[in-house]
């Protein structure tokens, strides 16, 4: 199915959901919070999750549960996006893909139940089924521990200092009482579930195309065209932006556009990647567009500041067309490539 023609585009919308729906067992697609890891082995370690520019730990942005039909080894398949949200960097992006067959060590063969689990217990699970511990702050692999109590796990020194200041200082000294209530470290994004709908087909009449190439007639006509474009103060940038606005006008709240091999819609004329800009997967297959993240997501993240803050135009994620087993988790060299093809010009 991977190489088949592009199907309809599926749009993702952010909705709030109860916490139990966003855990790994439910195979969620979600924004923010902690990552609901798919496989419990081979998670990316702290070096893989450090921003390439500023070396600080990346925040989990979103994950997409995108199984491939017809592929036994990709019955469960998840794509995880991480980004750097600390000013002044606000740039580094990383993508990981993980896939599991239906019969695996971590989940049952049957689909998970619809109803919420009866036990409320711990609100956050900090240990994977394989026994690996997750960082208290960010939910990623946490190999380091607090040197005093050895009960709190962290992925890096930054998170350990953050948690220390925000409450671990008090509870560390009490060995028998370990609080399961994790304070808000202001590191994670607000949590939402991504709900999917198929996009309706846009009528061709609605999208008006300006055909500048079709100039027939006398010289007077050509002058008219020129005057037209000058009079409108429109540059190519403006036309692309207006076209983008028309295309999302039917569903302005969309945060994600999913479709393997679809044509992406761009927000700006700058930085549009060409065919040759996208490197091939190490297995040899080409990389095709899997999904694109829209700027409307930033409205939900509430991370805007007057100063520097995280910002993007379109994030287009390209993955291996064959969805090979090479590009699985914890292989930073084999990441699906992420483009930030446009940062809106201001």
């Amino acid at each position, binding site marked *: 199915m991977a190489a088949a023609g592009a199907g309809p585009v599926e749009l993702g919308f952010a909705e709030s959901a109860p916490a139990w729906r966003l855990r790994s067992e439910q195979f969620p697609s979600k924004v923010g919070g902690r990552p609901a890891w798919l496989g419990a082995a081979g998670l990316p370690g702290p070096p893989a999750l450090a921003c390439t520019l500023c070396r600080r730990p990346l925040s989990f942005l979103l994950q997409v549960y995108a199984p491939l039909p017809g592929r036994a080894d990709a019955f469960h398949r998840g794509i995880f996006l991480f980004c750097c949200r600390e000013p002044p960097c606000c740039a580094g992006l990383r993508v990981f893909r993980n896939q599991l067959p239906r019969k695996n060590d971590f989940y049952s063969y049957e689909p998970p139940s619809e109803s919420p689990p009866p036990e409320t217990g711990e609100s956050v699970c900090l240990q994977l089924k394989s026994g690996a511990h997750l960082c208290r702050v960010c939910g990623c692999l946490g190999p380091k521990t607090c040197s005093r109590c050895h009960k709190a796990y962290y992925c890096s020194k930054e998170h350990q200092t953050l948690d220390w200041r925000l409450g671990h200082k008090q509870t560390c000294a009490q060995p028998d009482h370990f609080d399961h209530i994790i304070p808000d470290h202001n590191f994670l994004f607000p949590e939402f579930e991504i*709900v*999917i709908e198929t996009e309706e087909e846009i009528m061709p009449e609605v999208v008006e195309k300006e055909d500048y190439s079709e100039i027939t007639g006398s010289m007077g006509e050509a002058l008219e065209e020129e005057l037209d474009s000058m009079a409108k103060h429109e540059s190519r940038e403006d036309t692309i932006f207006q076209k983008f606005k028309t295309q999302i006008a039917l569903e302005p709240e969309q945060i994600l556009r999913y479709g393997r091999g679809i044509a992406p819609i761009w927000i700006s004329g700058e930085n549009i990647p060409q065919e040759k800009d996208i490197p091939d997967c190490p297995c040899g297959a080409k990389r095709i567009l899997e999904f694109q993240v829209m700027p409307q997501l930033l409205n939900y993240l509430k991370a805007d500041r007057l100063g520097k803050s995280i910002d993007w135009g379109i994030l287009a994620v390209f993955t291996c067309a064959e969805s090979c087993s090479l590009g699985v988790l914890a292989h930073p060299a084999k990441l699906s490539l992420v483009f930030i093809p446009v940062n809106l010009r201001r």
Partner: protein
Amino acid sequence: MQHGGQGGGVRGPGMGNCGNFHGGFSSGIRGRGKAEGKEWMPVTKLGRLVKDMKIKSLEEIYLFSLPIKESEIIDFCLGASLKNEVFKIMPVQKQTCTSQCTRFKAFVAIRDYNGHIGLGVKCSKEVATAICRAIILAKLSIVPVCRGYWGNKIGKPHIVPCKVTGHCNSVLVHLILMPRGTGIVSAPVPKKPLMMAGIDDCYTSARGCTATLGNFAKASFDAISKIYRYLTPDHWKETRTQAPAVATT
């Protein structure tokens, strides 16, 4: 029991497959009203800052020359006081191999009576569409108008603070300041944008092919927008301000 991912899946490839594991995943949980009372969802950082009221007025945006890409920003800031006026709808024709293709070009000016004015031009197959889109373009091109005094500084400012000229192709429009009570002395075409800008007294002098309404209107609009670019003595004082870090070109 159906499982996503086996035998081609009940739904097509893509994220929708997980729906089978969840059962009515996208049915009814959303309950979203479609296309009714859509709230503005900003796409640019400037839009988000305006919607969150972190940037409170258009003047802050003008101070740092940030490009405004979304017309909803203007709606948010100026809102109810905006009024638009259609100058002219002119049919323009293009020769195709079969016949002529007629489209309508709309010139729309938009203003609030408080020193902001914008001009939008758009061509479209239908008149209504052309006017709608021209209004959006007019909102995007809103500029502030600076007004001043001719003589004594009593009452409200009523004229351009200095002589300005604007031009568009061959048309040149020259605005000259006059004492209070003169009124706008000009041809009907530039009279409209001048009145909209709140300029009460002005002499104008025009040169070039003023019969082309498009160019004439744009030239007078250009003259008005040049006023703020002129460094008058009251702007000489140095001010230091911190620009919002919306990425600069």
